[in-house]
């Protein structure tokens, strides 16, 4: 369990930290250094909108995909930085999981032919270079 400077402050922030630490979807490097969160800076970093997806559902990823996750009035909105994709979810984890489905769906769409604009052909090349089928 993480160490907090002030254990009496079992607050919203602490709940967020616990949820982030228990989340398998986030891949923030700060999660690997749990002691950092005993400082205020750590909390700020942990609550950052930036994250990474390093695995998909049906496929493997050779390289992590950078994403942002933001709260959008009624749900969380996850977006990829390099691809024009977004997904929503009731929680941060669900939004990220739905974004994984979107990445896979796009990958499969792009495998179906070559009748794409140059922009999409670039995305196809990029995804082909980082996505592998699970054995």
């Amino acid at each position: 369990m993480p160490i907090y400077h002030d254990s009496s402050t079992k607050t919203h922030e602490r709940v967020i930290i616990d949820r982030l630490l228990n989340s398998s979807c986030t891949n923030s490097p700060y999660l690997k250094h749990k002691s950092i969160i005993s400082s205020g800076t750590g909390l700020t970093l942990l609550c950052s909108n930036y994250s990474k997806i390093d695995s998909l559902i049906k496929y493997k990823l050779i390289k992590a995909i950078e994403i942002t996750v933001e709260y959008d009035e009624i749900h969380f909105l996850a977006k990829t930085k390099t691809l024009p994709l977004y997904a929503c979810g009731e929680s941060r984890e669900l939004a990220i999981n739905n974004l994984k489905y979107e990445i896979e769906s796009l990958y499969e769409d792009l495998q179906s032919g070559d009748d794409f604009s140059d922009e999409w052909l670039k995305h196809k090349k990029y995804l082909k270079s980082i996505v592998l089928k699970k054995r």
Partner: protein
Amino acid sequence: MNNSKYNTQDVRNRCEHKLDIEFRITKELNGWYKYDNKKICRVTVSKGRKALPPKTYQSIAEQLKLSIDDFDRFMDCPLKKDEYDKILGLT
């Protein structure tokens, strides 16, 4: 931004009727806008009639390569393709 006026079903209808996008139903609805037999834009819309908060609305606009103002106009105009064709005297 007119996001509060519309829901996901409205976006789907506009895309289908105005841009001839055919949605494939998977976890979400995904469709391609084609021009000259090339796939140009890929748009994702949630199933059902869900509200469109601002960042989600903006994300759809970005997928269609439209500014918020242009996407508002795209959504505001109730003109459908068959009506459009009629006005042009094509049908």
